[in-house]
C-alpha cells in the first residue's frame, strides 16, 4: 500500500513537473505582456513534431535533434508574438484572447496539413534503465524528467533573480513605462520572454512525447490547458507559483486516477482549482491585486 502510494506520488511528480515547465511559459508571458497565450500548449506539439523530424526523417543524432527542437520552438514562439500579438498591444483583452485561440487553431491546422490526422507512433529517445529501491520501481523516463525539469527551474530562477536581463524582465512586468525610461527595450524583453517560455515548452514537449509516444496535431491542447490551470492555481504571474501549481496538479491528478476514478480525475483537478480560487482568488502564491483571467 505504502509503495503504491509512493509510486503514484512519483508519477504525479513526473507529470506535474512537465505541467510546471509549460505553466512557466503561461505565467511569464502573463507577467510581461498581461495576456494569456492560449497557443502556448501547441508549442509542445511543434516541439514533438520537430523532434520526430530530426530523429526519424533527418536521421540526426538525439542531442542535435533536441537542440533543433528547442530552437524551432523558440523561433515559432517569438514569431507568433511578433506577427499576431504585437499589433494588438493596445487592443482590448478580448481581441487578444480571440487571436490567441486563432493562433492555436492555426498551428494545429498547419501540422494537420503536413502530417495528416493519423497519429504517428514515436519511440522514446530516453533509454535509461529503471531504478529499483527495494520494491519501489522508478522508470528511467521519470528520472530523466525530474532531472531535466529541476535543472531548468534552477537555471530559470537564477536567470530571473540574478542577471541583468532577468531583473529587466521583472522591471518590465511591474511597470513598462518606468522600465522604458531607464532604457529597457520593452519589445526585446517581450521577445525574450516568449523565447524562454517556448524553449521550456519544447523541453516539456520532448519529455511528454517520450512518455506518450504518439504524435498528433491536437496533442498540445490537453497538457496546455492543464498547465494553464496549474499556472492559475499557483498564482498567474508568479514563477514559483507556476512550479508549485504544476506539481500540485500532477500529484492530485495521479492520486485521483489511482484511488478515485480515471474518468473523474480531470473533474477533480478542476474542482480543486475552483476551491482554491474561492479561498484565494489570486492563486496559492499569487499577489493580492489580480486581474480577471
Amino acid at each position: 500500500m505504502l509503495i503504491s502510494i509512493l509510486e503514484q506520488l512519483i508519477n504525479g511528480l513526473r507529470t506535474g513537473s512537465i505541467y510546471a515547465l509549460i505553466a512557466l511559459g503561461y505565467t511569464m508571458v502573463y507577467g510581461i505582456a498581461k495576456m494569456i497565450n492560449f497557443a502556448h500548449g501547441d508549442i509542445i506539439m511543434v516541439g514533438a513534431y520537430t523532434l520526430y523530424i530530426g530523429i526519424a526523417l533527418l536521421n540526426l543524432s538525439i542531442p542535435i535533434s533536441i537542440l533543433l527542437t528547442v530552437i524551432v520552438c523558440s523561433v515559432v514562439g517569438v514569431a507568433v508574438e511578433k506577427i499576431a500579438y504585437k499589433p494588438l498591444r493596445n487592443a482590448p483583452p478580448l481581441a487578444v484572447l480571440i487571436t490567441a485561440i486563432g493562433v492555436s487553431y492555426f498551428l494545429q491546422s498547419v501540422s494537420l496539413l503536413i502530417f495528416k490526422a493519423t497519429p504517428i507512433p514515436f519511440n522514446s529517445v530516453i533509454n535509461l534503465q529503471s531504478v529499483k529501491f527495494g520494491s519501489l520501481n522508478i522508470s528511467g523516463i521519470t528520472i530523466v524528467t525530474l532531472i531535466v525539469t529541476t535543472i531548468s527551474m534552477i537555471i530559470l530562477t537564477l536567470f530571473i533573480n540574478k542577471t541583468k536581463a532577468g531583473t529587466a524582465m521583472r522591471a518590465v512586468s511591474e511597470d513598462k513605462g518606468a522600465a522604458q525610461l531607464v532604457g529597457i527595450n520593452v519589445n526585446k524583453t517581450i521577445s525574450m520572454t516568449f523565447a524562454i517560455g517556448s524553449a521550456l515548452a519544447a523541453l516539456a514537449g520532448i519529455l511528454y512525447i517520450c512518455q506518450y509516444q504518439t504524435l498528433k496535431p491536437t496533442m498540445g491542447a490537453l497538457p496546455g490547458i492543464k498547465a494553464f490551470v496549474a499556472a492559475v492555481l499557483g498564482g498567474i504571474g508568479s514563477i514559483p507559483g507556476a512550479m508549485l501549481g504544476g506539481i500540485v496538479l500532477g500529484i492530485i491528478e495521479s492520486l485521483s486516477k489511482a484511488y478515485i476514478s480515471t474518468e473523474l480525475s480531470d473533474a477533480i483537478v478542476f474542482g480543486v482549482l475552483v476551491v482554491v480560487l474561492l479561498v484565494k482568488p489570486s492563486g496559492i502564491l499569487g499577489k493580492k491585486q489580480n486581474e480577471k483571467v
Partner: protein
Amino acid sequence: MPHMLKIKNLNVYYGHIHAIKGISLRVEEGEIVSLIGANGAGKTTTMQTISGLLRAKSGSIDFMGRNLMKTEPHKIVELGIAQVLEGRRVFANLTVKENIQMGSYTVKDSLEGLRQARKDIYDKFPRLRERKEQLAGTLSGGEQQMLAMGRALMTRPRLLILDEPSMGLSPLLVKEIFEIIKEVNKSGVTVLLVEQNAKMALSVSDRAYVLETGKISIEGKAEELMKNESIKKAYLGA
C-alpha cells in the same frame, strides 16, 4: 549653438481630448526651467511626450538638434534625457539596489565605473545606502522619490525631467529634495521641473512657463514671474 531642448507647436491628444494645444518651449544647456500649472493643465502629458511614452499628433521636439518625434523611449534615454515620472514609479518588487542597477541598464562603462557611479548615488542619498537590500515598495514616500531620482541619475542624463517631485512630501523633505536638484544642476545636468508647488519651483529656476488647460499662458525669468500679480494670485497663494 542649438537649444538643448526645443518644442514647437506641440499637439497631444487622448482620443478626442485635445490635451496639449500647440505649445512651444525651450530649455538651454545648464538651466533649471520649470513648468507650473494647476492640476490637469497638461504638465505630465507634455513631459511624457518628450520622453516618448506618449506621442504627439503634430509639432516638433528637438533635443541637441535631433528630432525625437519618432524615437523610441529607450533610445531617448540613451540620447541623454531621463525622467522621474509623476508618482515616482519605482519598481516596488525590486530591491533598492536592483532599482539603482536598472538605472545603468544602457550605460556602457567598466564594472569599476558603474560601481563608482552607484557609490556616488548612495553618497548623494545616504538613506538609500542603508536600505539597499530592502524592496523599494517598503520605502517611505520621500525615500521612493530619492530612489527614483537616483535611478534616473544612473542613466547619466544631460537633461533631467522631474514631474512633481514634491508631491505628498513634508515641507522638510521638499526642501531636501530641492537642495539636491540644485546640486545636480550645479554638477552640469540641465533640469526641467514640473511643479504644482510654484513657489518652491520658481525659487530654484532660471526661467519658467505657466501652463493653463493645454496652453502656455505666461513665460519668463523666474524672478520676474515671482513678482507677476496674476501668478501671485493664482499660484503663489498671495
